[in-house]
């Protein structure tokens, strides 16, 4: 009997089940109940309750993550569609996102250094503002632990989704475009979901900002870490 094969089926199967279950929660529209976060927490609890080690789960889980290769490439098509929606304002938006994105990487690295955090955590979190698939690739590249990145990046998105708009309003930001760009740059897709709820303009700005920052952060993170560390 080939038990390895059974674990592969288990890992993929349990992920699919929790993914489908969490998807049903979406209609309640409560940001804390982010479906990805729910699926991850659900699987972790399941594995803990039945005392299944992560390594066993990951025999199947790993296979799913291989699809991130082509899926990240596919994001290029998504970015292109967003780009077509907003050609005119692109220069100013790009400047804001490039500065904001680089500031996001530099600030997390500097804050963590000041607080005396270990190197592997800094490497794992430098790309915390960008969409999870890209953040995971950046982390692998700079020698961090992608498993730490994924959880924190999603948490950052949920934080931006829930508190971002309130914070920006308090800071005197009223421009719809500025709100959209900020949410997309700092809180990737989950922040963009909030911007879309605000309206079409913040939604589009947020989507493009998220795309741009994915590229800005992918290119700048290795350089910034090399310079600061």
């Amino acid at each position: 009997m080939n038990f390895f094969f059974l674990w592969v089926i288990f890992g993929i199967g349990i992920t699919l089940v929790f993914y489908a279950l969490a998807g049903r929660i979406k209609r309640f529209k409560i940001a804390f109940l982010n479906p990805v976060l729910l699926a991850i927490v659900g699987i972790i609890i399941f594995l803990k309750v039945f005392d299944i080690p992560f390594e066993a789960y990951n025999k199947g889980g790993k296979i799913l993550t291989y699809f991130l290769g082509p899926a990240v490439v596919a994001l290029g098509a998504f970015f292109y569609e967003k780009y077509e929606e907003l050609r005119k304002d692109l220069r100013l938006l790009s400047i804001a996102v490039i500065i904001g994105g680089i500031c996001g990487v530099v600030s997390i690295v500097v804050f963590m250094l000041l607080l005396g955090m270990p190197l592997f955590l800094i490497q794992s979190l430098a790309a915390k503002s960008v969409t999870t698939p890209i953040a995971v690739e950046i982390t692998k590249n700079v020698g961090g632990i992608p498993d730490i990145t994924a959880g924190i990046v999603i948490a950052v998105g949920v934080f931006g989704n829930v508190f971002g708009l309130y914070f920006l309003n308090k800071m005197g930001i009223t421009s719809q475009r500025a709100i959209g760009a900020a949410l997309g740059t700092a809180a990737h897709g989950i922040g963009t979901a909030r911007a879309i709820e605000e309206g079409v303009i913040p939604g589009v700005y947020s989507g493009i900002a998220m795309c741009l920052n994915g590229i800005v952060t992918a290119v700048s993170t290795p350089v910034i870490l090399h310079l600061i560390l």
Partner: protein
Amino acid sequence: MRIKAFFFILLFLLAGELIRYLFKLPVAGNIIGMVLLFVALKYRWIALSAIKPASDKLLEFLVLFFIPYGVGLMIYFDLIKAYWLPLSIAVIASTLLTLYITAVILQKSGK
């Protein structure tokens, strides 16, 4: 149609990995592939309709593909637990700063 589109995406992935390998770039191959695909679409080297059947499908399930990494957080619980407070402070402060800087640049120069 979708198989062909998926094949194109794999070609861009392969090209990205090759470029990374040849030029020893510190950026992941699939991210280079993503930028290549964007450039190819922008300059009309390839039509969006030739890619879309596969890219839309892949993006529909994008979330599913990184759930296992999220679950992987469980082995690092104890490691992270020791740092949860400074970690939260750093992440929240950096996120708020990023939000503000990006917004303020657009708002100030937009008028």
